[in-house]
């Protein structure tokens, strides 16, 4: 699909759906993995391969917010792993355990919810009538119908496209805290040293916000490095691994980890200030 076709498709969706919390993506085929001429790809992004979806699905327009998660906790009494652990990981120059940090430690309810493990994320999505997106669904959604781009925002070196800012990443804004920081997206200032409220940045062609940056997002799949050799129709990922897939990079990631096809796997019990999620669903309620 071309960018114009994708935008036309988005424009043709009923306004009620475009404006809703979820965006419908029809059954389609796309090329998943390392795009040609991207020399920064890791082994696990190869081989690039064709993925086909036999049915359309809905995906969250934004990452799940603190307010969204509060509704879940209020309704169910759910206790996150970070609460049971009594600490969560934060990035303060280096990664450290910080006592009593948890999902509602953020004051702003419109921030994407962080400090959630894969179990917490999957439990939220199930409660809301959905599920986590598969890794293939996630990448298809992130590409926004544009084939062969290195980033969610296209091939530009920074998320500044046509004068619009498209992502909250590790950028010039972190220099307020870390003046000598290297590894940032140079020449780009998104205005947020850490997390940004959801939807502050321009969406991709499917109308999805923050598919790059803000928080890394849990996917349904187990992670391994050779998944792509076996994918095809409606891939669900490998069975019985020890790590779950995280995609999209976060406010804490520079150019190396913001590439659209970049993959990350971590223990599903991990919770930190750079990990969140969005949900997918087969049908709307």
């Amino acid at each position, binding site marked *: 699909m071309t960018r114009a076709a994708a935008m036309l498709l988005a424009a043709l969706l009923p306004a009620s759906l475009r404006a809703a919390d979820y965006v419908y993506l029809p059954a389609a085929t796309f090329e998943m993995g390392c795009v040609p001429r991207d020399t920064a790809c890791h082994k696990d992004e190869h081989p690039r391969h064709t993925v086909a979806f036999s049915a359309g699905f809905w995906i969250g327009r934004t990452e799940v917010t603190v307010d969204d998660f509060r509704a879940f906790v209020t309704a169910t009494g759910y206790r996150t792993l970070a609460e049971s652990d009594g*600490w969560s990981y934060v990035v303060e120059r280096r990664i450290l355990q910080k*006592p009593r940090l948890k999902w509602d430690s953020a004051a702003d309810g419109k921030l994407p919810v962080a400090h959630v493990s894969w179990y917490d994320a999957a439990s939220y999505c199930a409660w809301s009538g959905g599920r986590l997106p598969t890794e293939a669904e996630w990448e298809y959604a992130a590409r926004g119908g544009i084939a062969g781009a290195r980033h969610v925002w296209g091939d530009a070196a920074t998320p500044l496209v046509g004068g619009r800012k498209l992502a909250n990443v590790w950028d010039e804004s972190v220099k307020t805290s870390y003046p000598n920081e290297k590894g940032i997206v140079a020449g780009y200032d998104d205005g947020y040293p850490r997390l940004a409220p959801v939807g502050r940045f321009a969406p991709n062609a499917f109308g999805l916000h923050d598919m790059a940056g803000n928080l890394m997002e849990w996917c349904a799949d187990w992670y391994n490095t050779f998944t792509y050799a076996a994918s095809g129709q409606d891939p669900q990922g490998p069975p*019985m691994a020890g790590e779950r897939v995280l995609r999209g990079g976060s406010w804490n990631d520079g150019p190396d980890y913001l590439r659209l096809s970049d993959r990350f796997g971590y223990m599903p019990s991990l919770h930190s200030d750079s990990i969140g999620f969005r949900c997918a669903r087969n049908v709307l309620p």
Partner: protein
Amino acid sequence: MKTPGIPRLAGVALGVSIVASCGPAKVETNAKDGLAYVLVPAGTFQMGAVPNDADAVGDERPRHTVHIERPFRLGRTEVTVAAFRRFAEASGRRTTAEMDAWSWVVNGSELDKKEGVSWRAPGIEQGDAHPVVQVSWYDAEAYCAWAGGRLPSEAEWEYAARGGLEGKKYAWGDDTTPHVNGRPHANVADESARRVFSGWTHFAGYDDGHVYTAPVGAFEPNSFGLHDMAGNVWEWTADWYDDNQYASPAAAGTAGPELGVHRVLRGGAWSDDPSHLRVSMRNKDAAVRRLPTTGFRCVWEAGR
């Protein structure tokens, strides 16, 4: 032994040394989970490796004095499959193994991943009265909170396991096998287990009659009236593991470290040999880990 504030219960003076020698333990049933809980008296004890224990390792030292300031009600047995089912049905909670859709099974001296394994299908033969296994620390913590309690601290656990016996190597005393006064006291790696797992080290000459888990309470209790504090299944405790914990100034209390990456397991299981059955032996694992050898018991606090 110091016995501060000896509580009087049912007309019987319950000091540590007294309860060890006479009088039935006070037992109450928790209506929530249907399990029996034993009142463990307050007291003071020596925690850690006993002198002359050649099997002890560094994290069991130094032996140090711990004060248990208040009596507490501890599960008389490990949490059973039936009780856990009650919890699962009431709470709707899915365990870590169920969400992962796989768990570990014993394959000789190895552990293998297997799809569909969880407490409901643990990979070993179990009945409703057996201790629930394949539960993570998070599952155990959630169960205890639901039942009106919490997991015991590591210090509470060892105090309870010693049952007022001072300076003993095992929960059953110093005998080299759990066969004491003509009665079996624990389900461990024994002659029964060896018939299936020929490569295992075991309690030679001891046969408890069970290869895998045994129904809870099938063996003799310790002096506090607690069953299976040695063997059957490893038991999660509330504490983070710190190999240097006993050297810290905080070790005299019952609070564990504030931060950590592994939780403490105690007591040994049906699969463990003498070195692991020692009452001071400290095991640890990631809080998401669940095995066919891992279960727990709770401290019941509601109404206190």
